[in-house]
């Protein structure tokens, strides 16, 4: 019997209700006459402290609070892909429809207390059974399939924890998510299975085993794939002050990465950024399959002006949906923009609960909450049969106040992630995008994914990658000297390092996310560009050792230098022989110089 109490106090998004004996911690409740969604975050005596996921304006002490008997959960089933949800999984387009029916002129606003189902109840899906009646089944076993979009086949799975004999299975045909599609006999009683299932958002979905991430998540962004690679099932953070390009980086990942399903959480960020994804993704094509990107994407929007408590929930809602598709055997990418806003939501609620603050007012459990979240990433063997593996890759943006990476959210996040793409205000000011600073960033997956590169692209990938890093690091040291004495006093070898580093920056690291050719580089193109630049460097270094000056080298190259810089946006992914040809012409020009030097 769910509890029923009354509001005694309201303070912003937090309310206190009394007469709540029997309420569970993290139970979802309905608050007030408008039945606003809330969640219990503390219980003291018969009082429950409730964070409310909608605006509390107009609530009064004395209004009723009703328990639902269940923790905050999401609905899982076909119909998730291509949808945009708010922080507690209400589809935003349906909210607009509902409001428009009563108040057409308020259609564009989100009013309170709108109740809409996350997954459409009336839509029929073509169900194909894949199990057989009489099979012994357990949690995670695939019993049927639904083509959810042209990109993703939805696996209908037995819910975790259930074990028994399949006594009935629907035949192939069209069903709604609420129709019974199978029956399982468990200990003498029959359990009905539907395509729709529920799962509490704060509890990770179980898996059979966790695996090592060994395959790179190709993103098409050169500095990421080549210098600081992400692995499928890995964790990463993108910290940066405002204007450094966090959102553009995350949009690029969502758009180009080799994941099969993308969950994009807009957590406390701009409304227009969600709109941009919503308008563009149906038109953009998935680079790996040519199908509209929206067919593999789920959006969760709790923009900065939407209720702050739902910001806290939105992260968990997103990661639970990601795990669900992982369990089907897909590689899922989850991007959260921005985890700082989520942490600030924690801080605001903690402040209202009058909890003892730790660093900068954040609650003391900030670190453990961050750890729990990032731990839900990973490459796994899913429960049940057939045997399949899937992954959840988590990339979170961090928005440090004043761009200061020592603040609590950035510093705690660094402990739980393995790829760090540090965005740099100085690079952004000179419009070097992506503004990923190669001195501050790192990836712990470089060695793990090297094998994939060696097998699929070139056996000398790691060697070239390390050499590029070395030149960039050496350049930074030299710049210190240049700042004191200028470039003229450097020896010719060092001048060449400066020249090559500039070529690497302009011709390889800088990448225009909005240029049709430059935005996405295949691994092959990345390697060919890198090889061209570094082979030039080796040859030039040889000449300098023979006594040539860097100025002579530049003269010998002539227009070829500019061609090398522009190759990234003038040569398409399928014209790699042109890069090879350019490399040969560069080397030939240098050989001619060598001949002249005698």
């Amino acid at each position, binding site marked *: 019997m769910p509890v029923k109490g009354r509001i*005694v*106090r*309201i303070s912003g998004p937090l309310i206190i209700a009394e007469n709540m004996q029997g309420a569970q911690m993290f139970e979802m409740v309905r608050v007030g006459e408008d039945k606003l969604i809330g969640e219990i975050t503390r219980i003291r005596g018969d009082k429950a402290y409730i964070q409310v996921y909608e605006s509390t304006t107009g609530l009064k002490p004395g209004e009723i609070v009703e328990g639902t008997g269940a923790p905050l959960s999401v609905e899982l089933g076909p119909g998730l892909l291509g949808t945009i949800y708010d922080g507690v999984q209400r589809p935003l387009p349906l*909210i607009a429809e509902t409001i428009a029916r009563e108040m057409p002129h308020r259609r564009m606003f989100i009013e309170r207390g709108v109740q809409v189902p996350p997954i459409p109840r009336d839509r029929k899906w073509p169900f194909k059974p894949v199990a057989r009646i009489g099979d012994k089944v357990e949690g995670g076993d695939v019993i049927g399939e639904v083509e959810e979009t042209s990109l993703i086949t939805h696996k209908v799975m037995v819910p975790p924890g259930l074990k028994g004999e399949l006594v009935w299975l629907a035949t192939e045909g069209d069903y709604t998510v609420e129709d019974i599609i199978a029956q399982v006999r468990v200990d003498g009683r029959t359990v009905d299975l539907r395509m729709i299932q529920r799962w509490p958002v704060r509890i990770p979905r179980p898996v059979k085993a966790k695996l090592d991430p060994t395959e790179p998540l190709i993103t098409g962004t050169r500095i990421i794939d080549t210098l600081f690679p992400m692995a499928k099932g890995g964790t990463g953070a993108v910290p940066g002050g405002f204007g450094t390009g966090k959102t553009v980086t995350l949009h690029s990942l969502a758009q180009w990465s080799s994941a099969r399903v993308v969950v994009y959480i807009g957590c406390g960020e701009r409304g227009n950024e969600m709109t941009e994804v919503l308008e563009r993704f149906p038109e953009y094509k998935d680079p790996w399959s040519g199908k509209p990107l929206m067919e593999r994407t789920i959006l969760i929007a709790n923009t900065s002006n939407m209720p702050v408590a739902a910001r806290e929930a939105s992260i968990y809602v997103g990661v639970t949906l990601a795990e669900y598709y992982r369990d089907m055997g897909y590689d899922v990418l989850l991007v959260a923009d921005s985890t700082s806003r989520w942490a600030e939501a924690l801080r605001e609620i903690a*402040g209202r609960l009058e909890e003892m603050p730790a660093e900068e007012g954040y609650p003391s459990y900030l670190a453990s909450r961050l750890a729990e979240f990032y731990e839900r990433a990973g490459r796994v063997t899913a429960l049940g049969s057939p045997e399949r593996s899937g992954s959840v890759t988590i990339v979170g943006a961090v*928005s440090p106040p*004043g761009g200061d990476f020592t603040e609590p959210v950035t510093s705690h996040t660094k402990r739980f992630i393995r790829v760090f793409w540090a965005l740099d205000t100085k690079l952004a000011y000179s*419009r070097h995008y992506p503004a990923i600073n190669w001195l501050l960033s790192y990836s712990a997956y470089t060695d793990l994914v090297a094998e994939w590169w060696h097998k699929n692209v070139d056996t000398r990938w790691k060697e070239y990658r390390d050499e590029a890093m070395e030149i960039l690091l050496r350049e930074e040291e030299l710049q210190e000297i240049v700042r004191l004495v200028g470039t*003229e006093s450097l020896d010719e070898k060092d001048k060449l390092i400066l020249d090559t580093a500039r070529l690497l920056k302009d011709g390889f690291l800088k990448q225009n996310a909005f240029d049709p050719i430059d935005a996405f580089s295949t691994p092959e193109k990345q390697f060919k560009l890198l090889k061209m630049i570094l082979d030039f460097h080796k040859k030039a270094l040889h000449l300098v050792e023979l006594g040539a000056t860097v100025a002579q080298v530049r003269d010998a190259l002539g227009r070829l230098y500019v061609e090398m810089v522009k190759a990234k946006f003038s040569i398409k992914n399928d014209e790699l022989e042109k890069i090879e040809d350019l490399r040969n012409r560069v080397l030939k020009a240098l050989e001619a110089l060598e001949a002249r030097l005698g």
Partner: protein
Amino acid sequence: MSVGVAGIREYSRITEIKGPLLIVEGVSNVSYDEIVEVELPSGEKRRGRVLDVARGVAVVQVFEGTTGITTTGTKVRFLGKPLEIPVSEDMLGRIFNGLGEPIDGGPKIIAEDERDVNGAPLNPAERSYPEDFIQTGVSAIDGMNTLVRGQKLPIFSGSGMPHNILAAQIARQATVRGEAEEFAVVFAAIGIKYDDYMFFRKFFEETGALNRVAMFVNLADEPAMVRLVTPRSALTLAEYLAYERDMHVLVILTDMTNYAEALREISAAREEVPGRQGYPGYLYSDLASIYERAGRVKGKKGSITQMPILTMPNDDITHPIPDLTGYITEGQIVLSRELHNKGIYPPINVLMSLSRLMKEGIGPGKTREDHAEVSNQLYAAYSRGVELRSLAAVVGEESLSEVDRKYLKFADLFERRFLSQGPRENRSIEQTLDIAWDILSTLPEDELVNIKEETIKKYHPNYRKM
């Protein structure tokens, strides 16, 4: 207690007064965020709103301050609704206080509707992405930090810098090409000085624009708590004009620093756990509830373009107010004291400035096909020039290479010819881009690595002459 008409309830048990807050006891049926009317023994009436409510107790924030309020004899009336202002097309051409009451001596507003000043969040699924280029006639903005209709683009300034002149220039010159229609302007003065207010007022009068401007005014010597409502009143009218009257509205909010300070004051009075520099932890969400009220929506002709102005304390861009603003708005226009001291107007530091929506507003059919590449090249070349300038200060200009010296000269040209213009000079986008090509052509052609070959062939002055 006495019950009046339409849910109005009156109480008089005030148990505590601190700062702008009243604690009223013995209340019932009070709702969160409800508006109240406080009547002093002298008969003076003030307004306030409920910040916290428990059974029998309400915390009320008084907009006009608590000076002179006594615990006995003061009546507090709870009005049973959140703060609302009347909205009507007739409000254009009029002047109001921060709570939306006329202060220009004109007739009472006949409201077409009453609206909650807090508004409601725009549904991201109902927004429509901003992409109409606004020509402001200012090269540094049009060429490199393009403004589009429905954007929120703040000006980060410092005390004594010409942000007012720039905002006025933009308000006067802003047009969408191919449309004759002018912007309606909603202007919110938040705690600014009288002379700043008079500057804008005179400016609107002189340009004959007064009849398409609505002003909401809270001056520096007026109650600080009203500053929390002033921008919301302005935006409530703007939303009505944009989404129900099909107008394109430009909202100028100045100065948001005063707003944030009023918020800190109320937070301190409530003894909340402070965040950075004493500002409340929810400063971000609170600012967002203002800035996010800009945009375009599906199926509606109108739009709201927001231009907040804020003065950075000590010119520090990492101060919480500009910092959090930059995280919410779609870019920023940063004014530089160094350029200002050099006598350059507008003193826009283009390297620190940014327009996030620029890419959608430019290009063929909107501005010109070379716009994006030229802008990238200007950024790259100017930032190299500025870098070399500081190097030259250490090692001397003569120890730079010939190409590097050309970059130095380019940086000077950029500031003097491209950036610099008169406060009444209105450049078309073509003029802006042509000036850009002129100064770029002082660099060797091989240095223009951000521009594609065919674009150079078409627009570079060397080829155009032929």
